[in-house]
């Protein structure tokens, strides 16, 4: 009952040691709550069993939105609202003058795809100016790797396992809520 509010922090000083530890801990069927690393450790998300991110898909949809916005905007302004003769360019239908519209259609597609995806990323990962950092130990942005697992019924056994994986520091933490 009180075990549920406690977590164990295991600190590592090498990425390969961390990877081996993740596999070991997963094999022991302990739940890894979080891992904080100073740089992207390739393959870590797979080893932890994280689901792949869908940001690329959102970006594609945002790009489509941008394309539609540009077509609707240019069609309205150039063909529907003021179909003027500017230098002999055919303004009778969108398709006839489309080559001149391609640059802006392209730019707006990229603009929407890029910016909306980045905003989605910031919101999904909960990052914005004045956001407080949540890494529990400041060394994890330098050269330390921190694995957080939820403390089970037998904390001593978990401590033993973690120490054997090469952790340089194992700490039992009361998670403040």
């Amino acid at each position, binding site marked *: 009952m009180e075990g549920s509010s406690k977590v164990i922090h295991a600190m590592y000083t090498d990425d390969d040691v961390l990877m081996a530890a993740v596999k070991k801990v997963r094999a022991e069927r302990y739940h890894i709550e979080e*891992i904080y690393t100073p740089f992207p450790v390739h393959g870590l998300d797979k080893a932890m069993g994280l689901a792949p991110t869908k940001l690329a898909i959102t970006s594609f949809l945002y790009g489509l939105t941008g394309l539609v916005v540009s077509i609707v905007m240019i069609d309205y302004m150039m063909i529907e609202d003021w179909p003027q003769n500017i230098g002999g360019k055919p303004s009778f239908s969108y398709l006839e003058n489309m080559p001149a519209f391609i640059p802006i259609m392209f730019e707006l597609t990229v603009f929407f795809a890029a910016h909306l995806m980045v905003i989605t*990323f910031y919101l999904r990962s909960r990052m914005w100016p004045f956001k407080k950092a949540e890494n529990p130990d400041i060394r994890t*942005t330098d050269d330390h790797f921190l694995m957080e697992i939820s403390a089970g019924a037998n904390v001593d056994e978990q401590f033993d396992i973690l120490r054997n994986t090469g952790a340089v520091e194992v700490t039992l933490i009361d998670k403040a809520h």
Partner: protein
Amino acid sequence: MASHYEAPIRRPLVLGEKSYHDVSVDIAKPVEGKANKSWWIVFSISLAAFLWGIGCIVYTIATGIGVWGLNKTIGWAWDITNFVWWVGIGHAGTLISAVLLLFRQKWRMAINRSAEAMTIFAVIQAGLFPLIHMGRPWLGYWVLPIPNQFGSLWVNFNSPLLWDVFAISTYLSVSLVFWWTGLLPDFAMIRDRAVKPFQKKIYSLLAFGWSGRAKDWQRFEEVSLVLAGLATPLVLSVHTIVSFDFATSIVPGWHTTIFPPYFVAGAVFSGFAMVNTLLIIMRKVVSLEDYITVQHIELMNIVIMITGSIVGVAYISELFIAWYSGVEYEQYAFLNRATGPYWWAYLLMMTCNVFSPQFMWFKKLRTSIMFSFFISIVVNVGMWFERFVIIVTSLHRDYMPSAWTMFQPTFVDIGIFIGTIGFFFVLFLLYARTFPVVAQAEIKTIMKSSGQRYKRIRESGGSLVGTGTDPRTHNVNIHSGTPIVDEKSTVKPQDPKAINELMDSVGVFDPTTQAKDDLQQINGVGPKMEEVLNGIGIYSFLQVSKMTKREYDLLDEITASFPGRAERDDWAGQAKILINNKK
């Protein structure tokens, strides 16, 4: 298991015996330290040029465009020349961070941050020109399709100048978020190292609360990849659209279909030259020679050589097509470039752009830092003249001989250009003092595959598991869950046992074979501390460089003054750099 295999033929990208911690220390150093005298000198010069430029801009806007050297025939000259030149320079940054990322080029990691910074600062300079070359810049907002009280009067989407507005603003804003997102982990590193509260506050704000969770990294890498995939066509499209300003016209010498790819190649060419210029200086000034190595410079030179050759082919194609076309206006445009009153500009452009990159075929030249620096300047001069030649020589003599004229810039034309150079360097110098100039989080991912130390370990048959550990930060403290008994140190100052222990680990100085180093060069060692160190028997950087946490503690016990000072200042790391600089 993360495998770090790399073909033995590849040369190391990070030199020296670097650990992950060394990377943090080296990259945070320029940010945490103080600016030196030469920085202030260069900054003052740049600031003066910038202020002069502002003066010229204010004078232009207040008095009218007539203060420039333009006339009725030549409506575009230095303004648009400088605009295209700055946009072109900006392109290398995106190329390095996006295209080289798509091609998985690891060498980009040491240079991408500065290249992107250069992009942003160069595009800011470029963006000034479309505004200030307007006759009525205060109506500049009319280029935007905003609903308005004129019956909703819209813009004309047929004009390449409007395409420019969309292209440049998209380019600047996308480059900015790409750059900023990449900076978050590095700002977080500096935030977590900061000791001064103000610095901590600023970098906490800039880092957006980056915590480095596994999920954050997974998304971060996906975002970087997708942005790279978007930025690559963007960078090609932006300079293409800039080239449309000329290519879609009916002016002989401008109306060409080769312009879009040829301008892009020229942009990459001049952009890489500018990156080379800046990085050759920067690696020296902020002592990052171990990260921005001669190999990086050589690879940039190869890109300059390739794109320079593409530009050369484009020049020849233009000449061939002019001859082949049978259009006398087109033929005259090129005859005029080569033999008309601006022959010197054309010759300068040909010499700088076609011949100078060909020197890079010689390994001796392309691996010479001095020579690369010289060529990179030459290329930028040549590329400025390319834009000048295209714009001015095509305008000053075209269809009607009665409209033929010449162009003479005034001091205001020149002053604004100098002002943008000053502004660019003001921004770049401020950046170099406050931003992590190398993407440390990315460098750390290639340490085990491309770091000299790890390559050495791997080639001698050793395993890389556990080698990321740094003795200075590796502090085994398994039982931190249980309270640690606070023991007061019983060691007295000048304790002979501690001195012996310290000397055992740092090594004895032999005055007959070794020379004494000036230990005061280490930041934190004053005349008093040097005496103390000499008293213990420490005379050389080599000895200091061997110090780890254990030795620092021993030193604290012996000297009993400024506890923790040596560790905080990272004397060992500083000594290593000083040793490297001596060589």
